[in-house]
């Protein structure tokens, strides 16, 4: 579980290209959007693509995505629940 969260933090930084932060700066319960990490709606689309690529988990619509993307911890839970 910790590994999964770490991996997600690296994906956010390396592939969504968040500038000027390190994995340690991302708290597990920090909101990914808005006041938290400040991701925008296009980042969310990219994250959907990356989650499918790295974990084979398909987030079919943004309603589902919104729930999964509230924090790293929730996203990790979502991925574990949906992985075959």
């Amino acid at each position, binding site marked *: 579980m910790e590994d999964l969260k770490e991996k997600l933090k690296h994906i956010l930084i390396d*592939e969504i*290209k968040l500038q000027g932060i390190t994995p340690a700066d991302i708290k597990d319960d920090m909101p990914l959007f808005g006041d938290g990490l400040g991701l925008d709606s*296009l980042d969310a*689309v*990219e994250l959907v*693509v*990356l989650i499918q690529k790295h974990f084979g988990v398909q987030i079919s619509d943004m309603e589902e995505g919104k729930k999964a993307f509230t924090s790293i911890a929730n996203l990790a839970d979502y991925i574990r629940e949906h992985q075959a």
Partner: protein
Amino acid sequence: MSDAPVVFISGASRGIGAGIARRLADSGYDLWLNYHSAHAEARALQAEIEEKGRRCRLLPFDVADEEAVGAALEPLLAEETPYGFVHNAGITRDTLLPMMSRQDWDRVLATHLTGFFLLGRLFSKAMLGKRKGRIVAVASVSGETGQAGQVNYAAAKGGMIAACKSLAREVARRNILVNVVSPGLIDTEMIKDLPLERILPMVPMGRVGTVEEVAGVVNFLLGPEAGYITGQVIGVNGGLYM
């Protein structure tokens, strides 16, 4: 293997699409060419493009068939993201609205609009991660002014213009530029049955345009000099509509 940027063109086997393919090959792009059923023409075009030293992949499928679009493109997009997407596939089923069949309406909207939706969704998603990309849709002056006998075609082209402007707003901050080229009367099969002697006097330049004159604008919109242009409709119509 080649490092040249790839451009996907829908409806590329004939007419304006084939002209765009030739022009882009001359500019050094590698090409993924979609077409529906003109296999012989497509293969001849592929040979011509490979002769120019470019890679050319043929992708025959119906752009309005969601399964076919996914089956053809998803495996390719997993490996490589094209730099450009040109939506050119188009058909006409002209007739006055009171006489228009449901099929003529559906088919024309499906090729232009649903085709743009299905292809644009895949390509824009792939381009987002690259933080660059160019999308060019080939519309028509009919989509700007309306045209008797073309309620279906004008609705589809007008819809595509609006869709492109919306997409341009969505993806601009990821450096993905979306524009429309809107040809008037161009010397292709599509105008062979039109009464040109009656229509040409309405064109300020008094002549039809060439495929090359459209392809050159598409080439420009894909190039580095068009780097600050997005959400625009560029008419290539000899002044028919200003």
